[in-house]
């Protein structure tokens, strides 16, 4: 394992489980110092991670966290935390739509903004926002989630254009069906099996597989990829067997 991220400070939101946890672990394994967030004070993070509690649905909590981000001036920011709450279009409640967008879009925007002065000062920065295949792809009952994630990608593309000349690269990673707690709250076990079979690779992704792509984009190995939404989906978005 090369310590290619030695001397780099990384912030990963939602680092207590799933994809965010795998990202935090891999950034650490490459030598980065990692600050992970979770909603609970003293949340369980990978060993060696520093913890910050932040509630992305609470603007005051996000504002306080942004102050911390400005002060810490991370080289790497991974906006990973998010929520999914499938509801068919006619049952969307305005407040729930707003809450999901607050967490998946408004808070990541604010955190990106807080990280930029430090990255510009370093003359080097990598931002990876975790988007979703629900954007490039559609499915019933995903309009709330899909609109928040598609907006995150739109925002990231514009941000990439604004900061590329400062050595700050901004990309999204769109995970396919990944074996996380989140997906298990959405699909019962028998549905999950069917879901896995619908993927050209015939299996779900493991969080570590998504994290590998995220960490590549966040590392110095990536020098010229910016403004992209990279799909790590086992072929789901582009391949069909009919």
């Amino acid at each position, binding site marked *: 394992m090369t310590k290619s991220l030695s001397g780099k400070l990384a912030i990963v939101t939602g680092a207590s489980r799933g994809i965010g946890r795998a990202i935090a672990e891999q950034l650490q394994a490459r030598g980065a110092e990692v600050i992970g967030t979770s909603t609970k004070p003293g949340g369980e993070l990978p060993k060696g991670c520093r913890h910050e509690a932040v509630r992305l649905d609470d603007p005051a909590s996000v504002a306080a966290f942004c102050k911390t981000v400005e002060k810490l001036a991370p080289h790497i920011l991974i906006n990973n935390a998010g929520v999914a709450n499938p509801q068919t279009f006619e049952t969307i409640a305005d407040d729930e739509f707003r809450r999901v967008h607050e967490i998946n879009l408004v808070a990541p925007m604010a955190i990106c903004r807080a990280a930029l002065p430090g990255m510009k000062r370093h003359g080097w920065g990598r931002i990876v926002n975790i988007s979703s295949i629900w954007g490039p792809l559609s499915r019933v009952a995903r309009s709330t989630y899909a609109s928040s994630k598609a907006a995150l990608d739109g925002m990231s*593309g514009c941000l990439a254009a604004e900061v590329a000349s400062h050595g700050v690269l901004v990309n999204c990673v769109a995970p396919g069906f990944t074996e996380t707690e989140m997906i298990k709250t959405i699909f019962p076990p028998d549905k999950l099996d069917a879901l896995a079979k619908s993927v050209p690779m015939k299996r779900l992704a493991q969080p570590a597989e998504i994290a590998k792509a995220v960490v590549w984009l966040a590392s110095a190995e990536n020098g010229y990829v910016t403004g992209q939404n990279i799909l790590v989906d086992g072929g789901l978005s582009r391949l069909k067997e009919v």
Partner: protein
Amino acid sequence: MTDKPLQGKLAIVTGATRGIGRAIAERFVADGAAVIGTGTKPDGEVPEGCRYQQLQLSDEASVDSMCRVVEKEAPHIVVNNAGISNPQGWDKLDAKTFKATQQIDLIAPMMLCKAAIPGMRKHKWGRFVGISALSGTYFGRPTRASLGAAKAGLVAVHMSLASELARDGILANCVAPGFIDTDVLPQLFTKEEIEALAKRAPIGRLGTTKELAALVAFLAGPDNTYMTGQQILIDGGFTRTL
């Protein structure tokens, strides 16, 4: 990432005597792979540590004999990099040049991929990376009808490969380079035009062949286990930004 992530792997890189292909071959050697690099001349020069193989993509007999080499050597990784752009405006565009471009940029690469499949199936592991182009798949561009058609076809070939072989652990992706600093650029553009091109991308500079090779190394290496059927743009934000 270990120091030698491609240890024990055999890679074939077409067009490895210069530019992007040479950088990919160098990177693969540095990552521990055995590399067969092709070039058009009988005695072409490839990076240290590579085996040289003459290959004329324009010549069906030469492609056939290379396919026998590929079948025998059973590479784990095939990078179809070599190509030709043959720019012609529509008033000059002729079927002969168009067909010759398809032979070099699309038909020969398809045959090399096909020849590699049995070996990859035996290894239960394979990675195809096609070097595509922005013209044809992301935007139309004056004088690039032949190239665009061929590269769009190359992407389609890789997507089809990905869809058929995903379940066997064989992944296929394309990389679309933006303006990369190679010896091809001065053949196509004046010095002033190259400087203007560099500024067209938000990042404000040309990409390096090393940066491109790093992306290919990720897609072709053991860290990529769930990305397939994708085309990744490495363009400093150029395509997505107006």
